[in-house]
Structure formats: C-alpha cells, structure tokens
C-alpha cells in the first residue's frame, strides 16, 4: 500500500509540473516596442539648463513650450519628459499672466475610445507634475485628443513615439 501511495505521489508531482501554472490565465507575451532614441526636437535645447535670460515683452506661443513624450500604453512622466516639463515650468513662472491648455495624445494603435481616455491620463499626469513643480493648478486646463491628431502620419515606431505626447497651448 505504501509503495502504491509513493508511486501516486510521483505521478501527481509529474502531472503538476506538466500542467504548468494551474489556475492562472496564460498571458501571451507581447513584444516590447523597440527602444526609441530621444526625439530630435529642437536639439540645441536638449539637456541644457533652462536659460534664465531677461526676455523682452514678447507674445508667448505654444512653440515656446517643450513637448513631453510617453511610452506605449503608459502615462507616467519619463526622465526626458521631466526635463521638458521643468523647462516649461520655468517659462510659466516667468510669465504668470499666461494660462495653458495641456493636450494629451496617443499613437494610432488601439481603439478610439481607449486612446481618448489614455490621452486624458497623459494630460492630467503632466498637469499634476507641474503642480508639484509649483505651478498653480488654476492656470492649467487639460484636454484629450486621443489618437485623432497625430503629428506624424507614419506607421512605424518613430512616428508612433512622436505622437505619444503632451503638448502645451496658450489658453
């Protein structure tokens, strides 16, 4: 009897190992999008300290602000986005009369509806970060365009990265 029990135990352990992870859903591993270089937007400004220069009275436009970029399906602020937002915060501090609209955008993959919500998350994420940097929340509005307003109409990782962004517009 003891021998039979022992054999059963071995079979049981074997079956358990073959059955794999019992009970949990198998995730089909998704390919990670390839590593993307920093987007080459206005290269002379990358990595430099924000210039603290006395500006003459000039109308601020949206081109005075840096864009923040995001990873696929994510809305957290990456290190390169942090730099961009710190720069933008400086600009906002020097122009306290200006209010901004933060736009959240996504790349073309996935549903229209989900990307609308993800774009909103990105815009809110940027706004929250700027609040942490000392900008008054009342100066900032957010809006999402989902995947409806790409800047790059390409269908590759370079284009998609350019589209996963938050943009600043004067409100």
């Amino acid at each position, binding site marked *: 009897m003891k021998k039979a029990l022992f054999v059963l135990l071995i079979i049981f352990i074997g079956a358990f190992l*073959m059955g794999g992870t019992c009970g949990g859903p198998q995730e089909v*591993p998704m390919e990670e999008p390839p590593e993307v270089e920093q987007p080459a937007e206005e290269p002379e400004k990358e990595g430099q300290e924000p210039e603290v220069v006395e500006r003459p009275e000039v109308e601020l436009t949206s081109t005075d602000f840096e864009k923040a970029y995001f990873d696929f399906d994510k809305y957290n602020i990456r290190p390169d986005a942090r730099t961009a937002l710190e720069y933008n915060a400086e600009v906002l501090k020097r122009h306290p009369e200006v209010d901004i609209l933060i736009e959240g955008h996504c790349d073309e993959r996935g*549903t229209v509806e989900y990307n609308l919500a993800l774009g909103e998350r990105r815009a809110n994420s940027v706004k929250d970060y700027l609040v942490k940097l000392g900008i008054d929340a009342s100066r900032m509005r957010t809006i999402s365009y989902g995947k409806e307003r790409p800047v790059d109409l390409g269908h590759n990782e370079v284009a998609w990265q350019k589209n996963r962004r938050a943009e600043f517009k004067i409100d």
Partner: protein
Amino acid sequence: MKAQSIVFFIISLLMMVSINSGSAQRFEIWSEIESSGFEPIKLAINQVSIRGEASPEDSGIAEKIYRVLNDDLDFHFVLDTVMIDPFILKLWEKDEPDLFIWKQMGADHVLNVTAEFSEEKIRLDYSLQNLRLQSFRETASDSYRLDRQYWRYLAHTISDEVVERLTGYKGIFRTRLAFITAKTGNKEVYISDYDGYNVQPVTNNDSINISPVWDAKSESILYTSWKRGQPDIWEADLKDSEHKLIASYPGINSAPAISPNNREMVLTLSKDGNAELYLTDRKGKIKRRLTNSFAIETSPAFAPSGREIAFTSDRTGGRQIYMMDTEGLNVRRITYLGSMNESASISPDGSKIAYVTIGPRGSFDICVADINGSNYKIITDSGFNENPRWAPDGLHLIYSSQWGDRSVLYISDYLGLKKRLVCNQPGSSNPCWSGYLR
C-alpha cells in the same frame, strides 16, 4: 487502512485537477460549423430579362440590377451563387443555361428576375425555382414597383426576399452603415447602404468627429465631436437633420451604447476624475454610475437583454473585456488570452461576442467567440483591424482595416469566410451597422 485510502482519494483528485487546468487555457478553434458539415445553399441567378420596351439606358439598369443581386446573394453567409463559364455553355450548345444545366452545375435553387420599364417607374418580378423538387417547382414569386431612381433599393428588396425564403433569416441588404471618413480633410460622420453605396454626410462641422452609433430604432446617430472645443456626445436625427447636444460634462464624453429597447444608454464620462461608465436615460440624464475604479473603463456594449453590458477595462494592467449588469454588479472578466482585448460587440441574439485582440500575429485582429469567451476564432489575418460591429442578422459583421496609409471598411460573415470591401475613402473607420429599417 482508512487513513491511507483517504489520502489516496485526495491525491487522485488533485491529480485530475492539475491535468485539466492546463488544457482549459488552450484556445479552442471553432469547429462547430465545420463538424456539422454546414454547406451554403447553392443559388443560380439568371440574367435579368426585360419585358416590353426598354431603352439602352434601361438595359444598362437591368444589367446593374443583376450585378447587385449577385453581389448581395453571393456575399450572404448561408448562400453561394453558382456561376457558369460561357465555354461550358458552348459545350451544351446553349446561349443561356436552362434549369437542367443549372442542376448539373450544382445549383439547388434558381432565381429569375424580369424587369419592366415605364415612364417613371420600374417593376421587378422575381420567381424562385427549387431544383431539388420534382419538376423544379416554383416555390416563391412576387413583384415590386418603384420610381426608377430606386433601382438599387428594388434589387436589394429582392435579395432580402430570396434570403428570407431560402434560409429563414431576415435579409440585411436594405440595412445601412454609419462610419467616419476623412475625405474632406476632416473626420466627419457618414451613412451609406450596407454595401457602401449611397454615401450621405451626417456631419459637416470641420472639426474632429468619431465613434458614430445608431440608436436602437436606426433613426438617429450618436457621435462624439470636438466641435465645441472638447469631446462631447451629440445626436443627429436623420429625419429632420437636427443635431442635439447629449452630454457635455467636463472631461471626456464618449462611446455611447444604446439599450435595445432604446430607453437607456451607457456613456463613458471622465467628469469624476477618470474614464468611467454611467447609465443614463435616452436623453443623457445620468441614472447611475456603473464603475468606480482607478482603471480606464470604456467601450460599453449592451447585450440584447438590455440588462448586461460588455466593456473594456485596464484594471489588471492591460485592456481586457468584462461583463456587468446595469446595476454595475456581477462584474466578471471575459477575455483571458492575449495581452490586449477591447472593442466588444455582442451579437443580436446574445450568443456571441466580437472584439479586437492582439492575436498570434502580434497585430490587431478581429476575434469572434461565444459570449462566455470560449470557442474563439480569429477572422482577420493582415493589417490593423478594429471596431467589429454586428449586423442585425447576427451572421455578419463590419470592421475597419488599416495597412499603412490605407484605412478601409470590410463586411464579413462571422467566420471570416467571405469578405467584401465596402468603403475605401481615406481614413475610413469607426463603422457601425444599423438595425432592420422595415
């Protein structure tokens, strides 16, 4: 002795559980149809003959009607048209196939259509003959008359009749589509016949418009638009072309789903901080909040009971499809395979669900499964595919497909066997199929 047999029992029970749980996760290719030996009904369609006088233009219309009948009936899931090679006709020494020839070619039924043209109107008579019955008995016939300009509609009427007589299913050939194209440079809402003809604009606001949805009576279209500077939900009444603002809360207003009794809607609103689902009345007044989580919840779809809703949520980190009731209770996850599943649409009889998955190809494919998620079949194999929506017969679907710069719309049966391109305007997307209009 007793203790040992109890241990024996427990171990063998655990063994059975561990062996079975591995296979439950394997996806089952849909074999129900194939194993039951389903064969489409074979239909032969004779050239449309003309009774009385007809101008060359009229003859042209008769020819076009024949084309429409062929395109309609050959596309239908339950039917296949039988064609005959002119070479074979020569062998039989005939100019046109007769019933015996059609039977030789494998046809089960023959459709005969006769057109008669008058000043303003066109009349179509049709008859169906069953080649499986002795003497090839005529089993149905009828006659329709309309103004000439509606010749397409007349042809679709006959196609619907034929489908109903031969298969018992109601025909979809007089239903309509709603979708987005960017042919003007802006994303605007359009409607068309089920086959993409007779395109008519619904919006023309030079803004961004997305996600058109037919209401349950197919009398109006709800859509999301940035025409007032933020994403709001509007309703366009197709009878009087009035556009009404339905939802304009702060944040996102999008993705409406209409209940089958046309009395309730589920909207995606982010007014409370995060994209959540809300049950509203038909005018957009909120009855109850349905979801309340840190996750994004969107893309709601009603089940035909009107008491259950499928939706997308990323509460486990990736987008998956869930079901809940209209109280927001009994939430359960439907999709487990693949890293991303969204854009659910429930068939009109409630038995199946179509959705978008990242399949084995690693790209976005349309998947059709039983409502509980089993019997899973992927019906596309190239491009980025999105937005599957059922036709009212529960046999066919529409979806959008993108390759590079081309974004087009396809209709298909639910097994992906027969597909038909219905719209190739630039940026065609967000398709939706109407209900029956008669």
